[in-house]
């Protein structure tokens, strides 16, 4: 099977397009593709739309906020557009408050399901989440089995930047514990899926076919995080 291993992150994101849509997983600082985000930051693509649970954490770690701070992002689709506490002012919060970028606020489960719908070729779905709230305003409503639902549409992307624990050279992926989070669904939903690997890239055939979390058919490029890479 095709060997998709790239020598380094810069090569893997070399052709990252301006004005493209990218997905960036991670939750609670686990499973964040920090090395790939750093490479996209260096590569300099602009006008990006990001899909991510949040728009960057506080602190110096590289995450989607790094691209925001560098003015590479024009819009974020995420589950947090305000900090949980007013004191937590990230680059995103500052820029968003100054109308320097756009944002779409999506409930986390709806976001996950919209990403999955993109991967699954589902045109739209009805969810009870957000019914009766401001976020449901203007959305199509429908009562199903006595319960009100809103219609939501898939979230597609050009790129998924993925953080896996282990991979084989074809791109079959394994994740470890809470590092899984958004990674599998984003890996399956994007046109081009680029993966950084924490632990090791093994030969095809070494992973148990029953224990693969994402099939390599969804993966385009793989890079092993070098010793001097970003692990946490």
């Amino acid at each position: 099977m095709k060997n998709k291993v790239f020598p380094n992150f810069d090569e893997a994101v070399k052709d990252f397009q301006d004005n493209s849509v990218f997905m960036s997983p991670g939750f609670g600082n686990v499973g964040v593709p920090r090395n790939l985000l750093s490479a996209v930051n260096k590569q300099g693509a602009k006008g990006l739309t990001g899909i991510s649970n949040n728009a960057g954490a506080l602190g110096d770690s590289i995450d989607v906020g790094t691209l925001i701070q560098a003015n590479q992002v024009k819009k974020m689709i995420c589950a947090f557009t305000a900090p949980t506490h007013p004191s937590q002012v990230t680059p995103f919060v500052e820029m968003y408050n100054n109308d320097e970028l756009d944002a779409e606020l999506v409930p986390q489960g709806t976001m996950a399901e919209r990403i999955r719908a993109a991967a699954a070729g589902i045109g739209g779905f009805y969810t009870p989440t957000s019914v009766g709230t401001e976020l449901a305003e203007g959305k199509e409503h429908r009562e199903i089995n006595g319960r009100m639902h809103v219609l939501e549409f898939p979230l597609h992307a050009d790129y998924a930047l993925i953080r896996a624990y282990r991979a084989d050279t074809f791109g079959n992926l394994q994740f470890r514990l809470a590092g899984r989070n958004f990674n599998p669904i984003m890996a399956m939903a994007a046109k081009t899926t680029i993966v950084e690997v924490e632990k090791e890239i093994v030969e095809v055939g070494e992973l148990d076919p029953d224990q693969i979390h994402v099939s390599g058919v969804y993966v385009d490029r793989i890079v092993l995080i070098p010793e001097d890479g970003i692990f946490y």
Partner: protein
Amino acid sequence: MAEKEKLNRQTMCDRLAMEFQDGWIVNLGVGMPTLCSNYKDESRELIYHSENGVIGYGPIAEEGHEDKHLVNAGGQNVVGIPGMAIVHHADSFMLIRGGMIDVTVMGAYEVAQNGDFANWRIPTRKGGGIGGAMDLAACAKRVYIAMEHTTRDGKPRLLKQCALPVTAPGVVKLVSTDLGLFEIGTDGFILKEHAPGWSVEEIQELTEAKIIVDPNICEVRTRGNTDSNQGTGRHFVV
């Protein structure tokens, strides 16, 4: 008037945790609600779920023993318990939307007497922080709220109707504040238990909505007085 002692946060959460039944799948919101997991009851086993797909996590990891790959919804390093299983984010919200969460405990800015609550957005600030709260609020079997009875400025949080944008309408079952334990009644909050030393009138004064006094009203039962004062196994909302 001198500040009268209110319940502390741990007691507020203990009181909610006392309601959890053996085998329940529990999702605790970030912040105060996580204190619910400190309440121990050997007679039952709970399964803690967090939005990131961890089903069956345990206590906060001891310093120096953290597994960097294992965090709860608050990003705290936790320990897995035997039987833990991991799923991805879409499958994690399958579980939530599918109605598998027996109880979610959340903080709130406001709760209304019709069971509405608000915890994601303050209109004077741009944007909001939803996370998984709307999914959990709309789909968990029970929504419990732990919050201070009033704002820092002393304004009531138990309202006739929410002023802030709601997280979900009509879903709250039980509210634990630093003044007492409340159920949603038909025309106000039913005060089931009050903080020691606080009268119904004093509590009503700090509450916008009408307070309906439960005929069996008592002092808030806590870890210390559960067995002696009220017996075990008295549960309001199942």
